[in-house]
């Protein structure tokens, strides 16, 4: 390979600026290997500047999905669906317990809850783990919120994400507990990585509200959940920097009946909803994609939802989970009308109803990107 730099007998030294830019294109695995080249490279890949540049680049170039095979008795099973659509089993798991819930995935860091709330509703979570699976760094976050167990809280909402404004990662836990007057009340607590501590935050608009999906969707410094308030479907946002909850409107056709078939995702860098408006399990199976747009001014609304795509109807039942590489990723149940597919985790685009079966298993699905972001 020495011919690379020798031309006309003259040795070419690349300036550091160019070398840094080349390193940006390397996957984390290679960068770990090339730490051993020299001290400068080892220090470079730990600088916030390089970590941020590499993260930004990898997010564009190599978006992954993380698949969590849930409800198994074989312990924790995680898989990456890499950008070449290959499924790779995640090794070196920090825990083997199968009662693990992925609270969120942000900038290559995963937040895991140890001790599932699904199997044992009366117990509070035991602890959390922050984990960079490719950099193989783990940080334990004990759950130390005082008096948390007093009223037997049940956790109904989780989230994990980053805010560039405060340059901090936070874990958000929304629990529901029974107050003295027997009313159920939301009780949100937040862990700041920077502060290294838990604190209670204002209930605000969460009062009287029920969260639908346990794990929030993180995007642009906010975490989003779906829920309902007084029989009305709503979207809830949590500003990671300000630590405030807010209500957001939903598309008018998404009523409470449909709320369980809606998933929050991202499309063309905007917040989006995947919506399966099917009535009855095996009827009308088109998927709709709605995108949140800036208000046009006429309606006076700050935000408005626009329907971007409606897919052709599927023979079976597709629960759309997320958008990845401009395609729907979801869980498919073939039902009685589709003899040609088995169920499982599938991909499909909006222009036809061809299904690309990724796995015959059903998975919980998270977006993921390999990064050098440290857990501390």
């Amino acid at each position, binding site marked *: 390979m020495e011919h*690379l730099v020798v031309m006309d007998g003259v040795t070419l030294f690349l300036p550091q600026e160019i070398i840094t830019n*080349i390193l940006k294109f*390397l996957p984390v695995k290679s960068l770990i290997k*090339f*730490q*051993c*080249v*020299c001290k400068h490279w080892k220090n470079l890949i730990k600088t916030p500047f390089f970590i941020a540049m590499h993260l930004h680049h990898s997010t564009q170039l190599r978006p992954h999905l993380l698949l969590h095979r849930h409800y198994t008795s074989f312990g924790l099973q995680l898989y990456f669906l890499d950008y070449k659509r290959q499924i790779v089993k995640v090794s070196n798991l920090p825990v083997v317990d199968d009662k693990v819930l992925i609270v969120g995935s942000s900038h290559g860091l995963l937040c895991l809850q140890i001790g599932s709330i699904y199997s044992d509703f009366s117990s509070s979570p035991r602890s959390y783990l922050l984990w960079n699976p490719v950099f193989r760094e783990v940080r334990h976050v004990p759950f130390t919120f005082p008096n948390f167990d007093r009223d037997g809280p049940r956790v109904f909402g989780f989230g994990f994400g980053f805010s560039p404004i405060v340059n901090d990662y936070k874990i958000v836990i929304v629990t529901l507990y029974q107050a003295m007057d027997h009313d159920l009340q939301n009780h949100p607590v937040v862990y700041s990585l920077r502060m290294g501590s838990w604190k209670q935050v204002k209930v605000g608009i969460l009062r009287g509200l029920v969260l639908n999906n346990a794990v929030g969707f993180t995007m642009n410094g906010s975490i989003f959940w779906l829920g309902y308030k007084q029989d009305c479907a709503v979207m809830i946002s949590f500003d990671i920097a300000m630590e405030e909850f807010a209500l957001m409107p939903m598309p008018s056709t998404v009523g409470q009946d449909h709320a369980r078939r809606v998933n929050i995702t991202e499309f063309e860098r905007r917040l989006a909803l995947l919506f399966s408006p099917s009535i009855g399990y095996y009827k009308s199976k088109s998927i709709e994609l709605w995108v949140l747009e800036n208000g046009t001014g006429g309606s006076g609304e700050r935000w408005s939802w626009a329907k971007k795509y409606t897919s052709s109807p599927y023979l079976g039942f597709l629960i759309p989970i997320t958008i990845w590489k401009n395609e729907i990723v979801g869980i498919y149940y073939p039902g009685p009308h589709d003899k040609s597919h088995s169920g499982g985790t599938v991909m499909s685009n909006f222009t036809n109803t061809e299904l690309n079966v990724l796995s015959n298993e059903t998975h919980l699905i998270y977006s993921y990107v390999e990064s050098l972001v440290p857990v501390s």
Partner: protein
Amino acid sequence: MSSSVEAITVLSSDGDEFKITVSAAKLSKPLNWMLEDVCFSDDCDEVPTIEVNSKTLVKVIEYCEKHAPRANSGASDSDAEELKKWDIEFMKMDVKDILFHILMAANYLHMEGLYDLACQTAADLMKGMTVSQIRKIFHIKNDFSSEEQEQLRRQHPGCSFD
């Protein structure tokens, strides 16, 4: 700016003359400024020099001419797909000899597309190399003490300094 000029002549650092179309030259900001400053006055007889050697400049111009139609007018997805395939083929040619020179030229000429393409190609080549091969091509000395090497090995089992 006169619209009658379609191609101009430039000199490489070796003193060879090359023709480049105006639309292709627009892919590079410095080239574009150079054209506006020097070559569009009617009495222009000055040939601008680009500080890139002939062998590299041939490749840079080839890239510019290929990418110019799309950069100037936008293109369909099928064009983009075709261009991607062309890029891969383009980078396969003689890469070992002039890849680093193309990197330097693309950086100097502010050609973002070619710069990223060359960086990606270099990174892809590096993936399969050992640490000592990397040191060799970048002319880097191993400056770790044996204690530091031992410490890194403990942190990342399996990492190699060779």
